[in-house]
């Protein structure tokens, strides 16, 4: 009985994985802001009763990154006379929809169950997820450090400075991690 419940859930998880994969590819291919917005609204409506909380979580994850990237891109584009408005709109919408999709997917589906047909994939996902947990904690650490060093709400300049520092640090770490993981993958014979 127990195992039948498990395999039914696993089937659902795999279906979820396929839908998610399709969604990600779809969102990457669509360029029209109207369609991107429609996709975002669609995902959000499909998210069920928890949609308020999920939207807030997605925003919290995506916003710091989007603000920094948008400001950076905006300045560069402004100085070099590139188009700003539409590119930024598309970027923000696309990343927003992707993050929302991921957040919704993560609450619905157990990735580990979805991929348990392949030990290698399980190992890979475990590795990626442990990285995500680690990064989430680190992000929280950066945030708390800023709070503890400020007398009140930090001003925009300080927040941007601190985010830039955190991002630089993450990029540095990500590079080192990627290198290590590539080596680990090679050691397990996965890249040959």
């Amino acid at each position, binding site marked *: 009985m127990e195992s039948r419940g498990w395999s039914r859930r696993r089937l659902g998880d795999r279906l979820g994985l396929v839908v998610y994969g399709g969604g990600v590819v779809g969102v990457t291919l669509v360029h029209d802001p109207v369609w991107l917005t429609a996709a975002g609204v669609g995902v959000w409506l499909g998210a069920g009763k928890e949609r308020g909380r999920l939207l807030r979580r997605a925003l919290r994850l995506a916003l710091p990154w989007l603000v920094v990237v948008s400001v950076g891109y905006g300045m560069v584009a402004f100085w070099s006379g590139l188009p700003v408005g539409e590119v930024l709109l598309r970027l923000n919408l696309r990343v927003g929809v992707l993050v929302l999709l991921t957040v919704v997917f993560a609450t619905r589906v157990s990735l580990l169950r979805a991929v348990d047909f392949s030990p290698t994939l399980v190992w890979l996902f475990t590795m990626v997820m442990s990285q995500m947990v680690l990064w989430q904690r*680190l992000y929280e*650490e*950066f945030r*708390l*450090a*800023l*709070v*503890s*060093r*400020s*007398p*009140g*709400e930090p001003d925009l300049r*300080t927040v941007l*400075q*601190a985010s*830039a*520092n*955190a991002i*630089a*640090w993450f990029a540095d770490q990500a590079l080192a991690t990627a290198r290590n993981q590539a080596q680990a993958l090679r050691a397990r014979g996965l890249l040959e």
Partner: protein
Amino acid sequence: MIELTGVSHCFRGQTALVGVDLRVREGEKVVLLGVNGAGKSTLLKVLAGLVAPSSGEYRYEGEVITPERLRRDRAFARRFRGEVGLLFQNAEVMLFNPTVFDEIAFGPRQWGFADAEERAYQWAERVGLREMMDRPPFSLSGGERQRLALACLLVLGPRLLLLDEPTRGLDPPATGWLVELIADLPATVISSTHRLSLAAELGERAVVLGRDHRLIYDGPVEEFLENRDQMATAGLLHCHRHRHGEVLHRHLHGHDWE
């Protein structure tokens, strides 16, 4: 000064602290001991008003402290954050200014001290970073960053200093310097460590968290260091094989302090 009553904390199902009762008087030097994951960092974050107890109560100078209250009551937060400094276990996360000088001057400027620059120079001198004032913090070595983060806290003249593994990455001279600095500081200092060799130097009172995240000892450091059973319960002794002449055997050690 500090009063914790039955403080517990859970991170989404992950227990970090259970029923901690603790009182600390002004000016005390306390050393917080415990194995990895015992809850030392979490306890220090509760004391810094960054993490809310899931249950129980934390009072600082008689005032109930929660992150919620600090967000609401701005004037109080300003005073509290000025008086209480936390050195994070990863000191890197505290550094985000373009130069070492700006980093140290950040706090005094935020609090509107008239002598912000002077203070920054003074503390740069004291932590031995005077020559590096114009360098970006991320270009410093691990130990230098640790000292820089420390200077950022000390420059504000805190009343309560919370140090999470303050000797991490410090070489022996810098460690000695820090030990003396802590002893001479008028502030209340709570430092965490899992190195028994340093316990007696960082404070006269030991507070020990067990593997079950409960407080298992609170008293004089010396007494704790004399009681092997207690240290073994806390998981602070290590066990490994070694040779005495021809005989290979294993038993518990605390030898980094013997």
